[in-house]
């Protein structure tokens, strides 16, 4: 196993607020890793710390085996495209694509050109005059064409419409397959990217609440639906994560079910459906809020 990112006990405080609280994880080389969680969970903070744009309060970070802070050897191989990236006044997209190769040695100009055409980006218009979607496209194109061995995407596609987003996912997958690199992707549009991810990290209020291979995360919960009595009978003894009922119909979320159990359930007329990654993350990160509601 070769990890490209190693985070140990990292806390980032702003005054009395902990943006990150004792977070530890590793990211393996040449995998696509999803950094998921609600707004304000700390996803951007993690990325800023990993790219040395921000500094830890406590804990240690190692990227490519070294501390990334003020470390050109590491930062040369990193590209971080923020959702809210600021560009110098009067810059056009053309300026961005012309200067990018000076900083990213793997820059593929032909790839950039084809992406510009794909996203229909007006490269000679001032960045200030670009629409939200076009602005996001600039960031996406830099991230993709940089071929940086470690590329971060911090919700850079928020301004993109569904077509453009899927274009991004397609191009990312294609390029990743041909030129493997480590990609860390943060988003709250989880279901859209769920199948792209190999590993899943979920943050909630600054804490790491899930750190699993995507396959395991996807398999970690199942929904059983059917007549209330039949369902209760079937799930008796299993830890239940969630219950939804409508009249005589009951829908219950339990842990992983192997194929025998699934077949047995179907034989009893019960419906087995997957729990999407998005639903899983929502449930995992919803708990504190519901606890608060319950106690109020």
């Amino acid at each position: 196993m070769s990890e490209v990112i190693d985070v140990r006990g990292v806390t980032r405080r702003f005054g009395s607020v902990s943006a990150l609280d004792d977070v530890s994880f590793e990211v393996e080389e040449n995998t696509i890793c999803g950094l998921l969680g609600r707004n304000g969970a700390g996803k951007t903070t993690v990325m800023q710390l990993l790219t040395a744009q921000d500094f830890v309060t406590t804990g240690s970070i190692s990227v490519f085996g070294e501390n990334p802070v003020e470390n050109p050897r590491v930062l040369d191989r990193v590209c971080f495209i923020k959702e809210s990236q600021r560009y110098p006044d009067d810059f056009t997209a053309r300026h961005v694509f012309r200067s990018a190769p000076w900083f990213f040695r793997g820059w593929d100009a032909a790839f950039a050109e084809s992406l510009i055409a794909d996203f229909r980006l007006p490269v000679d218009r001032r960045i200030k005059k670009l629409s939200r979607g076009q602005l996001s496209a600039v960031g996406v194109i830099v991230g993709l064409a940089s071929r940086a061995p470690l590329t971060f995407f911090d919700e850079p596609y928020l301004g993109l419409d569904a077509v453009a987003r899927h274009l991004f996912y397609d191009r990312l997958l294609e390029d990743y397959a041909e030129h493997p690199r480590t990609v860390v992707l943060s988003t709250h549009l989880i279901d859209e990217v769920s199948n792209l991810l190999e590993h899943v990290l979920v943050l909630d209020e600054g804490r790491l609440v899930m750190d699993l291979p995507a396959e395991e995360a996807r398999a970690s919960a199942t929904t059983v639906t059917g007549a209330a009595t039949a369902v209760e009978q079937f799930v008796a003894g299993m830890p239940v994560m969630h219950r939804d009922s409508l009249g005589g119909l009951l829908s219950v979320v339990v842990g992983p079910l192997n194929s025998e159990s699934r077949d047995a359930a179907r034989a009893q007329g019960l419906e087995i459906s997957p729990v999407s990654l998005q639903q899983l993350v929502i449930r995992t990160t919803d708990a504190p809020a519901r606890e608060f509601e319950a106690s109020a």
Partner: protein
Amino acid sequence: MTTIGVTIPRATRSSTLDRILAVVRLHFINPKGFIWLPLAIMAFIFLVNYLVWLIIFATVTAPAEQADVRQGLQYSGASLFIFVYMMVVAVQAINLTFPFAQGYGVTRRDFALGSAVAFVTLSALFSILWTALSLLEDATGGWGLGGSMFTAAYFSDGPWFERFFVYLAAFLFFVFIGAATAAAYVRWKAMGMYVFFAALTVAIVAAGAIITLTGSWPAVGEWLAASWPVGIALWSLVPTLASAALGYLILRRATPRS
């Protein structure tokens, strides 16, 4: 469990020079605000001055009075504007390019060094231009009107290298003060900038107070008259370098929070 972390092969590492050069190019890639705007402003100021001279010398016709006016013109403040504007140029360059450079994975050290090189280069280019224009001004007898913009009393009227040095020192002084101010802004936002200026003001007022209380103004005046302009230019390099160093120290812990 032994995990072998991934490390960086020697062959693909870039050199410090490459990186600094990349930052320099980044500052110059969009010359509009960096080069053309200052020059355009200067050209405009010059034009306005020229018209004023035309008007003055059309109405003031007696030679004695004209000589008087020419004396006065030597103290015109218009020629100083561009230097103060260089502060604005530096502030914009740092403030806008820093977050962008951070996104490109540039270290703060490389950014500071690269920006410093860019500023020195820009100042040198402008100084060359100004020196040429000042020589031209002399040669044309003040643009045919006895006007004085590039050879105002503030600057040197000696040989070209002296003029060049004075201009360069002046440009560098304002540029690096601007850079330090911008660093304060980037690190601590508006509050930081106000505090920075306040501190600067206090320092200047304090210096003035000390000089007044020790009755040293005459001595200061003499020293200024004697060392102007080259001596002063040399001395100005001290605060210039101090600003540059201060700016870097401030920038070292700055984050590009938008």
